[in-house]
């Protein structure tokens, strides 16, 4: 068991969830309630990482983060380091590829709230912020938590993008999914087996949590 890689994966998962939570809340709610031009295009864009091969996403990010791109140069001038092959770069890549996993359940959860229930909040004298905090969040939270659990679990298992953007630097970019590949290459099946089983258990647990939560939504609506 490569504990360093395991902890790095956990860190990456937590960082991704922390950054993505406010973004997903804002964007998921906006997609659920607002009508604007190009909404269909934005929704397609949100879903794009689901279809795109991870290596393709990783390749473009690598190019964007690299020394030859304007973005990479700007970040290097600002921070003195490159995003490519760094933990920070991994976090950004992880946020981007997890957008559909986080946004879509949150959007569905907000959409599932009856419009009249939100209106009833306003008519009862609640400010828009109070409606959000006291009506929308309590009703949408199973969907929100589902999105975050999926994001976390998916981050642990992400392979292609991490390999392209981060390489396999121990303690910096070598996550557990990379470590499994690494161990298999080294014919260390025992270590690979333990780590694979760990990921399997975590994924099953994540699915268990999301299933329980979606049943809870169903019950409440009944």
């Amino acid at each position: 068991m490569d504990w360093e890689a395991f902890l790095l994966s956990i860190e990456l998962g937590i960082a991704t969830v922390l950054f993505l939570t406010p973004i997903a809340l804002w964007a998921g709610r906006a997609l659920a309630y607002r009508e604007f031009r190009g909404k269909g295009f934005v929704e397609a864009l949100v879903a794009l990482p689901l279809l795109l091969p991870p290596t393709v996403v990783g390749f473009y990010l690598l190019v964007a983060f690299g020394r030859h791109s304007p973005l990479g140069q700007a970040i290097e001038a600002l921070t003195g380091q490159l995003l490519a092959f760094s933990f920070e770069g991994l976090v950004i890549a992880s946020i981007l590829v997890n957008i559909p996993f986080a946004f879509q359940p949150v959007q569905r959860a907000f959409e599932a709230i009856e419009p009249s229930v939100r209106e009833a909040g306003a008519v009862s004298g609640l400010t828009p912020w109070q409606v959000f905090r006291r009506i929308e969040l309590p009703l949408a939270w199973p969907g929100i938590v589902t999105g975050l659990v999926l994001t976390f679990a998916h981050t642990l298992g992400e392979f292609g993008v991490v390999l392209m953007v981060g390489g396999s630097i121990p303690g910096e970019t070598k996550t557990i999914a990379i470590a499994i590949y690494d161990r298999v290459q080294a014919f260390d099946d025992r270590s690979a087996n333990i780590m694979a089983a760990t990921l399997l258990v975590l994924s099953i647990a994540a699915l268990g949590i999301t299933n329980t939560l979606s049943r809870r939504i169903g019950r409440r609506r009944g």
Partner: protein
Amino acid sequence: MADAVLSAALRQDAPIPLDLAFDLRPGEVTALFGASGSGKTTVLRCLAGLYRPRAGRIRCNGAAWFDSDADLWVPPHRRRVGLVFQDYALFPHMTAEANVAAALGHLPKDQRPARARELLSLVHLEAFAARRPAELSGGQRQRVAVARALARDPEVLLLDEPFSALDRAVRVALYAEIEALRARLACPIVLVTHDFEEVARLADRVLVLETGRIVAEGDVGTISARADLPIIAAAAEAGSVLDATLVATLPDRRLSVLDTPAGQVLAPVIEAAPGTRLRVRIPARDVILADRVPEGLSVHNALAGTIDTIDPRPAGLADVVVVLGAARLRAHVTEDAVMRMGLAPGRPVVALVKSVAVTRPGA
């Protein structure tokens, strides 16, 4: 007549056409009556602040809620309105008590639970305070919605088809409850409905809406005799509505004498004190027309009047409106009878009333 609490003028061409102006007076129940698509719910949403029309103004107790000229729009949470939604729109994650307390933001926090329970007992739900909406029946949910709407101490109470999702038995019980409430409320009440029975039961005044316009306006009795309006004609069951006062009860004959604008009528015995104000409904199909008062008749009420209008109806029927004193009565007769008897506007006629139904006891 008391001054208007709320006056509104709303205008727009699209997407939902609106072109109307009206006043609401304290303690009065105004029905917005119309078919679906007539814009009645949209008008209600404008008053609540949930829908902003292109042009117009709304003033309530001296404060402007909407003025398109001044680009002024007060959002719903800053208008003191109570709205009972058609689907009640209770907060599903809160108990009945919390639903009501959520609308008590104007009170200090420590006073809210007591006031919420007080409002729940007003609608006879104090025993259900800890239940969530999913654990309540349709009628109970509606009553929680009413309690929540009253919680803000509204300047105007808006009811959006509040009975449409309920079965008949529950509905009738709730009519009585709303009637009892309205006696205690000083604010104007607006009832949106497409059911004339509700209008006849609950309303003082009716605005008949068609594609966002008021096509008729008046007290319930006057509007119920407007056979020229398709929606009134379609509500044949409703017939004519008359305000009445109980004069006396004749126990030996098991009848009550009522004073109505159409003259005195006899009705099945009503258990109430003389002087009680009532509202009665006379279905158009239960009115027979005759040239003179016939003899040897089982019908108690023969009222002499003059024909006002005759409107043809499908299936060989005609809707005849008879003026009786200050009232107007609708009668459904066949086209053949119109021809045979030579019925025409201005002709004197006797209306024989087969049944008189009391729709609103003790109003």
